């Protein structure tokens, strides 16, 4: 599978889900996809349909209402699929960690492969995280 993983590493198509965030991480993700950072150099492309995606970027604390929908979207994706959690909310809950409608463990909704901390993380740190994912794929 080494040869296929290298192809996959060079063409990661990204789909973006916002699981009840405060919207800052989403804005930073959109910044990441602007010409200034130009992630198309690395083969990364934003796609509109989950059926085309290789990477899910999820943000937010996953409240009770959105969690089943995120699970459904994850199940609709063609495998192999990687889940990258953007922002501190997904890993620790950040300032919403005692919110009444949060999901206790985000990992139980969907398996998460990589966390990018930061509130919100800079586009540079997201690129670094994706580069690490590429390093894992390339062995």
């Amino acid at each position: 599978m080494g040869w296929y993983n290298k192809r996959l590493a060079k063409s990661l198509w990204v789909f973006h889900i916002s699981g009840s965030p405060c919207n800052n991480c989403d804005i930073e993700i959109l910044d990441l996809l602007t010409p200034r950072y130009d992630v198309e150099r690395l083969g990364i492309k934003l796609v509109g349909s989950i059926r085309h995606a290789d990477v899910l970027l999820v943000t937010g604390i996953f409240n009770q209402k959105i969690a089943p929908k995120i699970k459904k979207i994850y199940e609709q994706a063609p495998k192999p699929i990687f889940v990258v959690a953007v922002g501190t909310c997904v890993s620790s809950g950040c300032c919403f960690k005692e919110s009444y409608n949060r999901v206790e463990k985000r990992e139980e909704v969907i398996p998460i492969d990589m966390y990018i901390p930061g509130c919100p993380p800079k586009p540079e740190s997201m690129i670094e995280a994706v580069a690490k994912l590429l390093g894992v794929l390339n062995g």
Partner: protein
Amino acid sequence: MIAWILFHLFVFPGMLFTSVLGLLVGWLDRKVSAWFQFRVGPPLFQNFNDFFKLLGKETIIVKSAVKSVFIVAPLAAFAVLTLIATIIGLALFYNEGFAGDMFVVMYLTMTFSVMVILGGSATGNVYSSIGAGREMKLLLADELAFILVFLVPIVKSGYQVQFDQILAYQQNAGAIIGSPSGIIAFIVGILCIQAKMTLAPFHIPEAETELVDGPFMEYSGPLLAFWKLDHYMMYVIFPFLLVLLFLGGFNLTGIGILWSVLKYVGIVVVMIIIKNTNPRIRIDTALNFFWKYASPLAFIGVILAVLGV
């Protein structure tokens, strides 16, 4: 003889040649588009990586889909494009043709759009259905102008309906684009190709911002790979068609090679420039444009050609 036919169909100038050249020219499209936005753009083999990656992904067959049509549509579209590429390539590189091959090509280009419509409406998804409907309207819009564009070389070459005869005429009397009617038909031809390939400003069926890839939305894995490959193969087929009809074909000896490459890349770059400098238009605007302006213009071209200008 059979081996030779299979070679033409599968290797050169058919499937393999068109796919590889198409994916490379698709890279040129993405690179030039990146330059337009002051970006660096993807590496050279990006489209190959995308294609092989998609081949290895899981294929999801949607529950609401009509299974047979859903699976057959992208493969049939690929077969149709391979056939068009073979017919045009045989005329361009080997000077071979058969009576009425122009009509076969006209018919097959329409068949490709029909495959997109079938594939899109087989998924049972609302967005895909809207995309398929828009593709149908776009086909109604551009088909008349496209056929009128074909008529100009037919009339100019003394009512020949064979690609190699048109090439032979152009070798004696100069390229058809050298005449006023030829210029008009060439301009309308580029606009029609833009609509046939659903490039901007006519990417109405795929409208990635509101229809999320339209007819191709529910496709994943190898089937999506074939749709992508179909799109890139058209980057070879349609510019070759214009070169064949209006620019006097390719001359593959000495300095002629440079001219041949320039002709092809020139048409592709004009298409990319149109793509990057125009916003998407509405479907009614597209219908208006083709029926009120492009088709009458092409018709004037045909009349001029009949008058011998």
